[in-house]
């Protein structure tokens, strides 16, 4: 219910101009204003990673970022990543390795994995484990997620 701020940014390769409340999170903007629901609310305080997005290439928790801070930046969500070759490769690997159960954490993990692979294409198992420690999964026990990321490199 605070004042609206005009922002201008790139979302999944498309330029967007939106008026958003000053206190709105990037997560709320993506889900409720733009209507991209692949980015999930899991905790709202940066502990679970379900809302992982990439901003100027870096992964962060959309719930901890103000929507207004997207201004002038390049934002990628799971919907954007999924439409690219690296996203398709990750999806295929997550599917093939059984890394998906309820799937609620999956978009965040795929986002985090894309960043991890890009930053460190030679990442070994330990580095992959460390690389996704900010993403919680309650179903899989992580084993198959680690294998999926290793298999998508």
């Amino acid at each position, binding site marked *: *219910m605070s004042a609206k701020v005009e922002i201008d940014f790139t979302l999944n390769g498309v330029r967007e101009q939106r008026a958003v409340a000053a206190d709105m999170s990037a997560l709320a903007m993506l*889900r409720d204003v733009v209507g*991209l*629901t*692949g*980015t*999930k*609310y*899991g*905790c*709202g*305080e940066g*502990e*679970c990673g*379900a809302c992982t997005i990439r901003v100027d290439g870096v992964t962060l928790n959309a719930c901890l970022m103000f929507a207004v801070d997207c201004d002038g930046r390049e934002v990628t*969500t*799971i*919907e954007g990543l*999924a439409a690219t070759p690296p*996203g398709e490769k*990750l*999806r295929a690997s*997550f*599917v*093939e*390795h*059984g*890394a*998906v*159960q*309820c*799937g*609620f*954490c*999956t*978009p965040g993990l*795929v986002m985090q994995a894309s960043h991890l692979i890009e930053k460190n294409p030679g990442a070994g198992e*330990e580095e*992959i*484990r*460390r690389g*996704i*420690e*900010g*993403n*919680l*999964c*309650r*179903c*899989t*026990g*992580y*084993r*198959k*997620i*680690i294998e999926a990321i290793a298999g998508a490199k």
Partner: protein
Amino acid sequence: MGEAQKTVARETLIGKRIPKMDAPEKASGRTRYLHDIDLPGQLHAKILRSTQVHALIKSIDTGAAKRLPGVHAVITAADVPWQRPIGVAKDHLPLKTGRVRSLRDEVAAVAADSVEIAAAALALIRVEYEPLPPLTDPVEALQPGAPLIHPEPHGGDGGPQLKPGGPVAYTGKPDNVAMTFEYAQGDVAQGERESDAVVEDVFRLHYVTHCCMGVSGVIAEFDASGNLLLHSNTQVPFLHKREFAEMLGIDPGRVRIIQPPIGGGFGSKLDIYPFEPIAIFLARATGRPVKLVYTREEEFEASPTRQPVLLKLRSGCTRDGALTFRAVETLHDNGAYTSWGATTPFVMMQTVSSLYRVPHCKYRTRAVYTNNPYAGSFRGYGNLQATFAVEAHMDRLADAIGMDPLEFRLKNAQQPGEVTPQGMHFGTCGFKECLSTAAARSAYQRKRLEHASRQGDASPLKRGVGIASMLHVGGGAKIYPSDGCGTILKIDDFAHVTLITGASEIGQGSETVLAQLVCEELGLPLSSVTVVNNDTDITPWDVGVHASRTTFIAGNSAIGAAKKAKDKILAAAAAKSGRASGDLQLSGGFVVTPEGEKLFELGKFLRSLHFSDKADLVMTTFYYEPPSHHQDREFKGDVSAAYAWASQVAEVEVDTRTGIVKLLSITAAHDVGRVLNRLGIEGQIEGGVVMGQGYALTENLIVEGGAVKNPSFRDYKLVTAPEIPEMDISFIETMDGEGPQGAKGVGEAPAICVAAAVANAIHNATGVRITSLPFTPERVYRALRGKLEAPVWNVPA
């Protein structure tokens, strides 16, 4: 095998690594969970919860909240005098009247144009309380003079005004005992006389909670005729349909439940919780769709927990290693209301009486009301608690008589054909194979001796191995009048199959395994099947996704429907080709002869049935009811059509300077009947093991004075990727005669004995036995220094 037979030996799907059918959507962010659905005209709801642990409600002033722009309805119990108590014991009114009994208690609710307005409206509601003495210690609940939690009737029009034939109400309780369970077999006193070794311990099992990554939520909507449509995450849609209908006083046929993909279940969605009726009340009050979704903090504070238990166990054996008796008494902290947690003794007593052969047994539970959070069902359903105690005593008794713990277990392990005194019939039973496989693959016996011999070494890092096993229902659980599941199967003109099943998908992979079983019968690829499983107006009845039952029960149901379809197709093909139908098969999308000759392409053949003089479509139904039995009044009975077994060896490293316990590996051997989908079953085991690891080492819902002190993932520690152990998983395939393609249920099994194995491993590493969970650094550090207070049994008789 002759050449001809070889040509038709089609490739089986059973045992293969089959990716989940819903995974591509989920991994690309396209899956629409309940949270992602917004209906036109939808309002957003929030609940005002009690600020008092125990108090009388003196007044509620909703005037200011109602005047806030954008607020459509503010309701309290006074607005829904027809509401009925919900839950397992029907002791729980969705909106509280007269008294609040816990901090999660629902006092009022708002429906507004946005979540923000609803939250602002809550802040304007004024509630005046008269505090009552809180009761937050379950032991105290049994003391004379303890505060009473449910002294007066509630529900209907409110206690004394209740009219005969009027709304159903809870009658109240003159004490705090919510439920009791007593079971006995043989004569424990005789067993004790025959014992050469007797051990006794008190165990304390803590609060943990499900932590589904998708928080709880519901969307309720009435149509113009008063029919209710719920978008719900429930695990038991058909039971809830009936209960909501009773609450609303309408025919159950007028309640439709759609389950969007569910972001984790684990048993948390087996009971109706107040938020669901409250959303319904608000939808009725406003005439609009009402969406109610929890925050994570609310999820921690107002969702069910695993049942916390204080447990006293006394066990004995002879000097040559035969178990003689077991006596168990438990105190269950029921919390303020009764949900499924109170009934976990059904499972606990099975482990006590029947995991190992023990002639004399007695079991007693009292579940008592307090002002604490209340426990629901949670993967394993009491079995983690019971197994933790029973397996500690298997090690202690083996120690007492100087026997190798593995040998001691093998000597007392159940075997195929056993009928236990509790009436459980073990048809297939791979327990001994589980024990020997897990032990051999982990080098358990050698490592146990080596690690024990190093307890006195100078190194501060100690290693240990521990073994534990479990028994759990693996062929359904006959709790309700039926434990069945229905299937409707349709094969269209293009040989595409629509499998309509009552079974709910909660991420475990049921739709994939059901499709796989159908394809196996019909000789079709998995891409030929669409599964419809989430709409009670379409799907046939199922009792729900619980008790590790779905693959077994819904699998048999799906196979039954597919067999009928196959019979029908082959009979028609036989008539057309002049061959005996027994000679024909379905394979690779064709009707084929034993020699492999393709007689008819299936789609073409189905069209020829359809567009003929005697037009016919291939649509079949099947209802599978397992051949199991309800327990009698003494809790005896063969409740499951099959039983699952597992043994797990944990290896740990204990840092004696810090108390940090690192779980290095879990070597698991599971009797799963038969592997259907190898990828899926590995995922179930791995996920269950890590959930068990959390129970053992990191997770602890801290409840003090009735309040949850750590309602966030920052302070409630789920296991993260760097912490998971190495996992070595073996499948013991006992080919259960009743199971679908020989399989048994496995969903809960892997989580059950991890903590027990870890406890035994810590003992092997350090010589210290810890009987309370979780094994946090602080607890272990104190225990290693003799400074941990062991749980005591100070419960009034």
